[in-house]
């Protein structure tokens, strides 16, 4: 991965297994995933609530493209291409130097931008703890809430089979 622009990957060496050997990488992986799955309005209000908003320049303006979604035969076998999904990405750099990256499903440029901004801010160790508590944790909780609500409704449709036990003849 020496070919990848290091500017956007300060902590990752790209060699270690994802999120296992490198706790910094695992942390970034987690918050980027949370930011990608967040609702745009949640991100907007988190941004509005932010006390000091940083200045930044684009490394790559938001662009809409696609990622080919892959799956496995039978769920576990060889890979195949299922179809594509729309994805928006961007890269930016804060005036303080941190480079942030946004890769989010869909075609919202603003979503990618906000994800990249928070990604950059979270790399500042001085701010990370506070942002984890005030932004990432609530976004994650809200995602989990949506998921649980769906899952509880699904579980109400789970079949409980009654087995009739025939009495022994005496």
């Amino acid at each position, binding site marked *: *991965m020496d070919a*990848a*622009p290091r500017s*956007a*990957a300060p902590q*990752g*060496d*790209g*060699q270690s297994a*994802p*999120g296992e050997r490198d706790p910094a990488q695992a942390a970034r*992986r987690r918050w*980027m*995933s949370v930011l*990608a*799955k967040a609702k745009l309005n949640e991100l907007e209000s988190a941004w509005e609530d932010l006390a000091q908003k940083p200045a930044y320049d684009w490394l790559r303006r938001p*662009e809409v*493209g*696609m*990622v*080919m*979604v*892959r*799956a*496995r*035969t*039978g*769920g*576990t*076998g*060889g*890979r*195949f*291409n*299922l*179809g*594509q*999904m*729309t*994805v928006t*990405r961007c890269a930016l750099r804060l005036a303080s130097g941190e480079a942030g*990256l946004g*890769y*989010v*499903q*869909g*075609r919202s440029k603003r979503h990618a931008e906000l994800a990249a901004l928070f990604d950059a801010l979270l790399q500042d160790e001085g701010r990370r703890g506070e942002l984890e508590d005030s932004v990432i944790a609530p976004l994650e909780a809200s995602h989990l809430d949506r*998921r*649980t609500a*769906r*899952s*509880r*409704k*699904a*579980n*109400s*449709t*789970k*079949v409980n*089979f009654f087995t009739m036990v025939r009495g022994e003849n005496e």
Partner: protein
Amino acid sequence: MYVAVKGGEQAILNSHKLIAEERRGDTEVPELSLAQIKEQMQLAVDRVMTEGSLYDRDLAALAIKQAQGDLLEAIFLLRAYRTTLTRFGESEPIDTSCMAVRRRISAAYKDLPGGQVLGPSYDYTHRLLDFALAAEEGVGAPEAEAAEAGVDESIPRVTDILNHEGLIEEETALDGDAGAVADLTREPLRFPAGRDLRLQNLARGDEGFLLALGYSTQRGYGRNHPFAGEIRLGEVAVEFVPEELGFPIELGEITVTECQMINQFAGSAGRPPQFTRGYGLSFGHCERKTMAMALVDRALRARELDETVEYPAQDEEFVLYHSDNVEASGFVQHLKLPHYVDFQSELQLIRSLRRRHDEEQQEAAE
């Protein structure tokens, strides 16, 4: 012979205006919003995404509105739009065992870990028209029941459970993910087609075509004795490794339907008797489609399993060349384009044949 090739411009422009008016319909009726289509025509959106081969609910809803509900036209629109977007890369393979399950049933096992979760389905309805939906005041906000807790976090696949007995073939990545993955969007079909190419083709193939072919295998046109081993519907995360990072991050979640068909297999010289598998997977909730896909996937494995290829569903050239409704509809509908010159030459040919025929008849009579 010259044929007028110009002059239709104004007629075409006016046809555009006419279709716009027809699409809008009676202006006394409120205009349909994309949000309404997205929320209340979800299964149409799912089909358009799957066969349009692009996961984007908003674009699919737009395509449906633009096509006046003609789903094949909407699929065509989505495919065409797709070509304007750059590709950032390929995702990591999605893991359907980590699905946030909303429906999961098995017709092969009654009691299985994780249970039978019916989820949202029309299977258990009476197929009686519900006039409550036609009521002026609408249906309001129906509320589903919610259980105390959600379904199990991770529900094992039925096929993985069967595997423990060794009675079903295992699906493993034989190449250890080292090889290239065939991609129809980059290369034309080539035969013999690998299973990766076949599955990609079937995944975006026409539901009606696959349904008919799947049905044909059940009616005897293909040795097949299938069980719906498992069908599951739910959300899976899509992971992607950005070039800039070198490690995977989640881009978001997509809804998929998965069908694992289990088929009897008597065995061959190289294989013991065991169950074999057919696989179906789609974007969104496309259950009928994934079931048909799984049947056809299994039928297309005939060569690999030393079965005689004798029926349409087993013939990969027949199936893969005719499954794509964008291509099929293009070729059928191109017959509407002017063929004036072709037809003139055919006319001349028929006239001369007729002349010769008449002369021969006359000679014979004399």
